[in-house]
């Protein structure tokens, strides 16, 4: 029963956001796209957490997707759908190579390598003249036929990706992921290929991050190396932590809440970093299961009273 509650919750939030695009102004529409993309990033981070690893390289794959899109739009005239697919594909290929090397190490080593990879790529972008160097790439617009509906398209696609990740998590493969997190030696002893499965998990999450990056590039029209530093991974972590990492609903709720609050705070002249930092610190210390955990706790209390 609880399995379906999360599906329903995610779809409900998606519908609410779509309604926001339909009835809100252009500002609300932009905000909805940010929320959808942030939710995908947080879900991708959570997906790798299923095998027990914190994937700090997710910002790097987001950047790869965005830059691939930017490059194709500026240098080759390919159809929109193909551009999107190629961006996801590039993230997939890079993530298989990167994961194939780094997933041999675990815990803090994996995390720090992801962190270093993100920074190395950021430096790489600033060095590449073809990628616009320090100033980045401009003029990344969605095609004319989609322009008017781009906000709907992005929101729907983002939520399909999130539901897809949830589907994999609930499948047989997803159960192996969680078993690896709990005890990988047991998984190996019953004949599963642990390393291979880890790379698969990492590659799926990274492809999704790459697609999100591509959508971000089209939505933002402009990308620069500074958008894809390790701070992006920390932001995704903030959404995940505030929402709660145990439930697939968590990253979506966290993204919706934090993006709205940050946008409101910025309009009042507040500092985004302080807000996100405070949100992470407070949720780690006082709300370790996040919003989703809090909702669960309230429900259980109600049930025990009744």
């Amino acid at each position, binding site marked *: 029963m609880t399995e379906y509650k999360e599906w329903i919750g995610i779809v409900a939030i998606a519908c609410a956001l779509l309604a926001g695009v339909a009835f809100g102004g252009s500002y609300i529409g932009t905000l909805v796209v940010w929320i959808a993309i942030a939710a995908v990033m947080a879900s991708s981070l959570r997906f790798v957490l299923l095998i027990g690893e914190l994937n700090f390289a997710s910002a790097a794959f987001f950047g790869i997707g965005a830059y691939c899109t930017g490059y194709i739009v500026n240098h080759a005239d390919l159809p929109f759908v193909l551009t999107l697919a190629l961006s996801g594909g590039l993230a997939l290929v890079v993530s298989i190579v990167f994961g194939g*090397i780094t997933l041999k190490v675990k815990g*803090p080593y994996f995390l720090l390598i992801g962190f270093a990879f993100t920074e*190395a790529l950021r*430096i790489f972008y600033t060095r590449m003249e073809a990628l616009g160097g320090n100033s980045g790439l401009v003029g990344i617009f969605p095609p004319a036929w989609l322009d008017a509906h781009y906000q709907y398209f992005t929101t729907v696609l983002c939520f399909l990706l999130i539901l897809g990740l949830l589907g994999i998590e609930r499948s047989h493969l997803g159960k192996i992921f969680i078993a690896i997190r709990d005890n990988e030696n047991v998984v190996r002893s019953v004949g599963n290929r642990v390393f291979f499965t880890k790379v698969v998990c990492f590659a799926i999450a990274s492809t999704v991050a790459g697609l999100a990056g591509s959508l971000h590039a089209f939505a933002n029209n402009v990308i620069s190396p500074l958008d894809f530093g390790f701070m992006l991974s920390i932001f995704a972590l903030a959404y995940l932590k505030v929402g709660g990492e145990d439930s697939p609903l968590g990253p979506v709720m966290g993204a919706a809440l934090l993006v709205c609050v940050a946008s409101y705070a910025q309009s009042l002249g507040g500092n985004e970093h302080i807000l996100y930092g*405070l949100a992470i610190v407070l949720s780690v210390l006082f709300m370790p299961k996040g919003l989703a955990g809090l909702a669960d706790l309230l429900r259980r209390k109600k049930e025990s009273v009744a």
Partner: protein
Amino acid sequence: MQEVFQLLFTALQISAVYILFSLGLTLIFGVLKVVNFAHGQLFTFGALVLSLTMGALAPSLGHGWAAYLVAGLAGLAACLAVGLVIYQFGFKRLERDMTGSFILSAGLVLLFEGLMLEVFGGAVRPVPALLEGNVQMLGLMVSRQRLVLLVFAVLLTAAILTLLRYTRFGKALRAVAIDYEAAMLQGIAYRRIALYGFLMACALAATAGMLIAPVAAVTPTLGDAYLVKGFIAVVVGGMGSIVGAVAGSLLIALLESFVGFYFDPSIANLAIFVIVMVVLLVKPKGFFGND
């Protein structure tokens, strides 16, 4: 040949700061099994407090040794106070929870960086040089300022290594790093050692920041570049290993000065990353890692 010596000296001088920085990281990892991202912020905070106090003291004490000493103590005290608060209210509650405490430290990075930008502003706060001029040494031109920095860092590193190697406290700390449960069975007060280890690391970060302050542009984001390098040094050397931190820092500094000189600084950064990947392929736990 002259060129090579000059580069070697530069590498030595950069590595001095990296060593102080990564020693702190590896100490924290050793005693708490925590990857502390906020280490770079303490480094920056030390430098900022130093520059602020120096500015305030300038009318009465000038820019001499006395002002530097007082400001240095102020920076150290401020960082220790912040470290104590972070430990007591944060890391202590998440003892040995790697992911949780890492996320906490990532949150602290954002929080501190935002707060420091608000309080100190984004402008560069110059710290006056303590010594002017250059000295001729072994046929090399070396600025006095950097020479003092190097000597101080080397002495401090030696002191820390001696402390860890020969004193009762150092032995207890290493025992905790190897196996904290076995250490507790031997009657070592784990919590106290963990607190002291954490504070020592904070003091190291502050000292490193204050040493680099006169030769660097002191801004609220000063620590970020050192954070990446420091972590890479620790990963290459093996997390929790003291020797590893020193060796890793030397390797990074050598790459940075040689590749940076013969090619260009951003190629050096990429080269450092490639080296890490290669090292991890060959030795997944780093050169001196054992956990």
